[in-house]
């Protein structure tokens, strides 16, 4: 077949059922991305004879004799297309994984479509930006500023990777070609709870191209948590690389490693698994009730850090300050309500996955879509009993995280397969796998009780929380503890009580997700405060002003914390309330809604600790190069969070230079040092602080050297 791609003719022939997306990538056009592989997200958009199409739903053979333009070929002769420049000026991206498809689509819109951008872009999903900066790009607006030497801090500077992102040249996780690469596909459990009695691999191994079938028999016995924290004790050890018990529909049962994805898929279909199906508990309230099927029988608090396995309770917290019951009994106003929150998925546009290979020196290399490369390395070292210096974990640009990549969902299988086959291996999740088998926000049932006196001073605050952690306890405890902490410790109140339980169920595990438990509970607390205000006839701003902590007040939530590491860095809560009140009192824009629309407004507040508790460590190294530029090495990862921009700003400011003089290397264990990871805003607050300290030290050193 003959196909013209970006002006070059290719003679390769695609597979009969191959889609254009993978064919273009096979031919080296990595700017063509996969968000969904189902026609929904537009990340794979290319121009076919000048018309934009979703290449994942175009049969590749239909491109025969036609001309394809990918993002790499949009600008003439390697130059920049005006729309690429517009996206740079407006910074119309964060992780940038949607950007190639977005630009190609936007570049093909007519005037009428540009007028109705929301409709025109309904086939282009951007998870990060909220589309505002994309609208800005279409409107020709610039969102970037200049900064003189030493003046970078506080300026709106462009992301360093921007020029690569808009040209489709920024390398995301899967955007590399490796020789002799094998592909992994996972067979997943159709049952919510079952013991695996036997797996017959013969038919799978007979599929041409299949190299290995890995099951629980091949996996290390060691238990760990997919959750990654600086301190391993924060999560229970309840997970194996491949287990002989499955605890949710979608849990991995076996990995087939083959020359092609097609052969690996066929191998999965040919595996014969004999299950002993067990009773399942899918409702958290029933799971913790007497007589429920036990999901992690035999695990203990002492060894596995599972609070009470017999009751399916993985973590819990109970405590009281004062006497809530009698305070409520004598309050002028009381409120009680129960709220439930649902399961949601992060939906980062780049799915989980990665590649692994063992190089000539015996070093196990893992390149994955992760927020926590250093902690993944530590976990792999433990699981595979390999010294740290024989493992390298790194990420290039990551297509969105949102907390979902503060977990190890693929690297363990990648390592197992690379070690077993001695070949480079790749595992790329489908969108379906993202939904059924990665993690979600913890669904919670939150009961709040609150009381206040006539003046609106809080008398009692009580939270009763049941969190559904799913089949594994990754992040179960820390999320639960966070959920019942800042949302009530931001208020002064003499009587507070917390009962919180995280339950195992036979459902997809919940995990880390932006806000980390707080979004689930804060609106219950804030709803209660509002209802008290209403009952007492007090303005909702005013009741909050009367009760919020003031500088120096202890921030308390029961039971007492064993850490005393939360303190006031600065205080602006009072100003914050004033600003919001002022903004809301100005005239509302007229939305032109008809009378049958009920319009209201409300206020809520919450507090969030700037740094995860119990330790978060980051190393930064900065050196002066011979050419006068600086080389900054940090561990923290970039996935649209903007830390690459921030670190250069911090360093350039401390060194009285401009950001273009700072070249950044990041998120690679091979570069040395340690970094707990990019979560809980630590990429800026912790790693950024390390960069500031390093740059200031270097600045001092340079000054000394200049003087001597």
């Amino acid at each position, binding site marked *: 077949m003959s196909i013209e791609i970006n002006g070059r003719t290719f003679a390769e022939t695609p597979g009969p059922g191959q889609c254009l997306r993978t064919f273009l990538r096979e031919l080296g056009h990595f700017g063509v991305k996969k968000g969904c592989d*189902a026609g929904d997200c537009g990340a794979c*958009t290319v121009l076919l004879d000048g018309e934009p199409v*979703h290449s*994942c*739903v175009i049969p590749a053979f239909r491109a025969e004799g036609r001309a394809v333009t990918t993002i790499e070929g949009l600008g003439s002769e390697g130059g920049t297309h005006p729309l690429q420049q517009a996206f740079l000026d407006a910074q119309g991206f964060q992780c940038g994984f949607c950007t190639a498809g977005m630009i190609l689509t936007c570049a093909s819109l007519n005037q009428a479509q540009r007028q109705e951008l929301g*409709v025109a872009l309904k086939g282009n999903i951007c998870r990060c930006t909220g589309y505002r900066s994309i609208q800005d790009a279409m409107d020709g607006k610039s969102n970037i500023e200049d900064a003189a030497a030493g003046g970078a801090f506080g300026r709106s500077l462009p992301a360093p990777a921007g020029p690569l992102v808009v040209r489709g040249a920024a390398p995301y996780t899967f955007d590399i070609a490796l020789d002799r690469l094998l592909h992994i596909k996972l067979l997943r459990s159709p049952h919510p709870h079952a013991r695996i009695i036997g797996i017959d691999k013969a038919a799978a191994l007979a599929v041409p191209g299949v190299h290995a079938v890995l099951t629980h028999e091949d996996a290390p016995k060691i238990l760990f948590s997919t959750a990654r924290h600086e301190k391993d004790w924060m999560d229970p050890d309840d997970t194996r690389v491949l287990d002989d018990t499955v605890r949710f529909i979608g849990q991995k049962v076996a990995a087939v490693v083959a020359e092609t994805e*097609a052969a690996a*898929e*066929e191998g999965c279909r040919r595996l014969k698994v004999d299950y002993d199906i067990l009773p399942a508990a899918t409702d958290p309230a029933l799971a913790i009730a007497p007589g429920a099927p036990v999901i992690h029988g035999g695990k203990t608090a002492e060894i596995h850090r599972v609070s009470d396995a017999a009751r399916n309770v993985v973590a819990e917290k109970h405590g009281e300050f004062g006497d809530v019951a009698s305070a409520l009994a004598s309050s002028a106003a009381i409120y009680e309500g129960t709220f439930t929150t649902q399961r949601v998925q992060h939906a980062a546009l780049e799915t989980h996955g990665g590649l692994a290979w063992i190089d000539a020196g015996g070093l196990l290399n893992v390149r994955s879509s992760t927020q926590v490369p250093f902690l993944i390395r530590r976990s792999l070292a433990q699981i595979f009993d390999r010294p740290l210096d024989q493992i390298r974990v790194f990420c290039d640009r990551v297509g969105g995280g949102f907390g979902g990549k503060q977990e190890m969902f693929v690297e363990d299988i990648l390592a197992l397969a690379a070690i077993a086959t001695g070949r480079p291996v790749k595992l790329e999740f489908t969108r379906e796998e993202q939904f059924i088998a990665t993690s979600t926000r913890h669904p919670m049932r939150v009961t709040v009780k609150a009381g206040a006196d006539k003046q609106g001073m809080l008398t009692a605050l009580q939270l009763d929380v049941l969190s559904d952690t799913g089949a594994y306890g990754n992040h179960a405890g820390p999320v639960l503890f966070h959920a019942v902490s800042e949302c009530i410790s931001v208020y002064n109140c003499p009587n507070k009580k917390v009962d919180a339980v995280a339950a195992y169920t036979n459902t997809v595990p919940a995990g880390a997700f932006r806000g980390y438990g707080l979004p689930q509970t804060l609106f219950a607390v804030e709803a209660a405060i509002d209802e008290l205000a209403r009952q007492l006839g007090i303005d909702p701003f005013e009741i909050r002003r009367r009760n919020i902590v003031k500088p120096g007040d202890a921030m308390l939530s029961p039971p007492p914390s064993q850490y005393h590491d939360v303190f006031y860095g600065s205080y602006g809560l009072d100003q914050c309330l004033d600003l919001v009140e002022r903004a809301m009192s100005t005239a509302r824009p007229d939305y032109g809604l008809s009378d049958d629309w009920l319009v209201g407004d409300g206020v809520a507040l919450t507090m969030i600790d700037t740094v995860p508790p119990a330790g978060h460590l980051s190393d930064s190294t900065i050196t002066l190069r011979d050419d006068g530029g600086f080389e900054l090495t940090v561990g923290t990862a970039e996935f649209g969070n903007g830390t690459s921009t921030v670190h250069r700003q911090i360093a350039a400011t401390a060194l009285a230079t401009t950001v273009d003089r700072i070249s950044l290397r990041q998120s690679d264990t091979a570069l040395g040092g340690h970094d707990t990871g990019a979560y809980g805003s630590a990429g800026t607050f912790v790693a950024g602080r390390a960069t500031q300290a390093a740059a200031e030290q270097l600045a001092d050193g340079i000054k000394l050297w200049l003087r001597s």
Partner: protein
Amino acid sequence: MDLNTIREIARPHTRAQLPVWTAGDAWLAGGTWLFSEPQVHLNRLIDLTDLKWPALIVSDNHLRIAATCTVAQLDALACAPDWIAAPLIGQCCRAFLASFKIWKTATVGGNICMSLPAGPMISLASALDGVCTIWRADGSEYQIPVADFVVGNRRNLLASGDLLRQIDIPLTALRRRSVFRQISLTPVGRSAALLIGTLDGDGALSLTVTASTVRPIKLSFADLPGREALRSAILQQIPEAVYHADVHGRPMWRRHMTLRLAEEIRSELAIDP
């Protein structure tokens, strides 16, 4: 996505060249649905493109839409000035959840054969009294109204090996007054109710209910009914079990919207143009 079990693409140019249908075969029209989900039960796709059916033909009595006509081609059709129902074409094309990029390849026939409740080409063709021509695997053919062809959520009257050739729309239907209403849970989302009312020269109302129901339901009235008459006709003639249930809307809500949109259509048609 890659359909890795597909071993062959057949590309017939004429009806005579259509291969003998065997298990594991599927007709490939635009492919926008086929390539959007795993199809591990399939091993051959029979591509309809090279049959080169003319997309749109206007004769004295009919608008003939080839099954392989793309949504974009239909949307771009230059309509005669007296086709006062023609705005329905654009309205239905825009009722796809799919983006305008998908319309370039998605076909009218593919949409009707998918037989999803939210199939806007089903809504359009049903409301305009469209008739399907089906080529049977044995070489014969037959005709059936689109509204009868779709019998449930992803269910229609095609037997294995049957091929939808075309949809004929009587021009008289295109000359009726029409009113379109559609709603979904999210802006520009997947249709949860899509209703079309048309009024012919004699004042007879035809109301086509789609998306809220698992299959198209047509209600006919000799004259424009009153508010209550319309309401009770809908309640009587659409059994509760026919309302569709999925994440795009609950049956109760869909029924409520059906009643509401129907009344909007009725009152709009009640006003002389």
